[in-house]
């Protein structure tokens, strides 16, 4: 009996204690509560920032991997054996070269506030680019993360052009050309589409809001069209098209293309600038478009020349990745399948039929895949963009407005055309001027005997494959 009474007493005192403690917690009231809510909100924001930053740093690394080894292998396998190192070296050298240019003044020219066509010099030497976010671009990640992520795009874009002048351009000429191209073509285009006050910026209220999620115009139209200009200006490789110039190793190209496919998730899903649902949506769209494009290219060539080739499959993959790039954050999986399939067939026709018809020597099809696929993708984005995926246009009350033509925003196709035309014009004019400058100063092409010998030996004094005589 005694035992039970003591137990009850203990239980009762516990209840009283708990009750008292809740009372005392409630009484010192509002000031403290607001502070705690603020602290919690800060913690939640920090957690979101950390999550977004983790994905954006990963994406930055993935996009760098697209250039090296991705593009270096893809292009390296497509050239003849005697030019494999020179071709890989062009991509690799750009990883270093553009990085330094970007740190000194490139980033400022592309993403500084500036007028509608180009940035300013406020962020020269990366001044003012620290770990504090720049809310105009991305409120949840450090400004430096945004800057380094954009750098990876600035690297791969000129690297894509190297496919057009492969096997015949001087290394020194390539270096000068690329520095000038990065400043005169890439930085203005990136500013117009993604920069503050940019003429075509859809997210920040540009005059002609062009939907370009991850760089269909900025990256692929500019590089692809510039590639065509280079191919026409430099002329054909010696012996083209009479002499056979088959890829020396489609094996390397397959590895490169697969790395591009994987890296492209950083390129497109990373362009959400965060790790939320939009990143997932872009990731999914990217993947399905690529799959459909592989099938599109393979079926087209199977029907026309009787066999589905490995090179055709990987070329289709790249075509699909290019075409879905501007659309990736605006369309769902079914639209992605349509865009990819269209890109696979269209780029095959450009590469296998149109190029042969006109006879230009776009050696590795930088124009046929990136210029043509990028243009197609940019236009199809205007048709398929959906406000349910990404409500980019809003009215004064913040209500989502229709995005693409199929949603009732018929006007958008005109904006897309303006964006594409500006990219084409800037690429053509800029590239012609730069080629002229380089041609008159250090000369563009290697001498004929060096071209025959191969650029590995003539430009770099080494060979890609050194076969020792041994058992």
């Amino acid at each position, binding site marked *: 009996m005694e035992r039970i009474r003591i137990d009850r007493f203990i239980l009762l005192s516990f209840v009283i204690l708990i009750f008292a403690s809740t009372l005392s917690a409630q009484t010192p009231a509002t000031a403290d509560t607001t502070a705690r809510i603020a602290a919690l909100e800060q913690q939640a924001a920090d957690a979101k920032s950390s999550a977004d930053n983790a994905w954006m740093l990963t994406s930055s690394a993935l996009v760098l991997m697209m250039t090296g080894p991705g593009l270096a292998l893809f292009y390296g396998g497509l050239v003849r054996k005697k030019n494999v190192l020179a071709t890989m070296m062009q991509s690799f050298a750009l990883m270093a070269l553009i990085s330094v240019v970007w740190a000194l003044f490139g980033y400022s020219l592309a993403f500084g506030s500036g007028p509608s066509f180009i940035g300013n010099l406020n962020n020269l030497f990366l001044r003012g680019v620290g770990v504090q976010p720049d809310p105009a671009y991305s409120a949840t990640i450090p400004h430096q993360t945004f800057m380094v992520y954009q750098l990876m795009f600035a690297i791969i874009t000129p690297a894509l052009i190297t496919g057009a002048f492969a096997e015949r351009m001087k290394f020194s000429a390539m270096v000068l050309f690329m520095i000038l191209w990065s400043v005169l073509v890439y930085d203005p285009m990136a500013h117009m589409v993604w920069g503050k006050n940019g003429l075509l910026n859809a997210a920040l209220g540009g005059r002609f809001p062009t939907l370009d999620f991850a760089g269909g115009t900025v990256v692929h139209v500019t590089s692809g069209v510039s590639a065509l200009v280079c191919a026409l200006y430099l002329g054909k490789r010696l012996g083209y*098209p009479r002499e*056979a110039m*088959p*890829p020396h190793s489609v094996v390397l190209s397959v590895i490169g293309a697969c790395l591009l496919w994987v890296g492209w998730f950083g390129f497109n899903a990373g362009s959400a600038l965060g790790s939320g649902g939009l990143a997932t949506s872009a990731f999914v769209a990217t993947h399905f478009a690529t799959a459909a494009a592989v099938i599109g290219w393979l079926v087209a*060539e199977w029907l*026309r*020349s009787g*066999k589905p*080739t490995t*090179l*055709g499959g990987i*070329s289709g993959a790249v075509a699909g990745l290019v075409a879905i790039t501007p659309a990736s954050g605006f369309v769902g999986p079914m639209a992605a399948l349509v865009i990819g399939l269209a890109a696979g067939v269209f780029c*095959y026709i450009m*590469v*296998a*039929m149109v190029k*042969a018809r006109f006879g230009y020597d776009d050696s590795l*099809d930088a124009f046929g895949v990136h210029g043509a696929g990028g243009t197609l993708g940019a236009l199809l984005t205007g048709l398929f963009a959906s406000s349910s995926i990404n409500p980019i246009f809003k009215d004064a009350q913040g209500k989502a407005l229709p995005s693409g033509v199929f949603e009732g925003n018929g006007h958008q196709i005109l904006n897309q055309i303006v964006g594409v035309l500006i990219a084409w014009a800037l690429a053509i004019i800029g590239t012609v001027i730069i080629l002229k400058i380089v041609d008159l100063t250090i000369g563009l092409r290697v001498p004929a005997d060096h071209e025959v010998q191969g650029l590995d030996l003539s430009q770099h004094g080494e060979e890609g494959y050194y076969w020792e005589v041994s058992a």
Partner: protein
Amino acid sequence: MTKIEAIIQTSKLDAVKNALHEIGVEGMTVLEVRGHGRQKGHTEVYRGREYTVDLIPKIKIEMVLADNMVEQATNAVITAAQTGKIGDGKIFLSRVDEAIRIRNVERGDNAL
């Protein structure tokens, strides 16, 4: 002494080698070569561009034999390498003046 140069299909190397071992041929030199006779090459297509590859990979076997072995050896090569289709290859025979074994400077048939 006679030198036998046999150009054969790459896929027939093992069969020819075994046949020669069976009749007691002790040495040979094998080379991977490219060339064509009446068998023209094949076409390859890269991104819609057709290339005609007219130099086809072949195997060339070289051996120098004592004259009494030659008939038997050529028959062995023919039996092992023949499919009856164009591209089976050719055998060339030529006289060899001298053979010297480097190790002990033996000459003539003894050096083979």
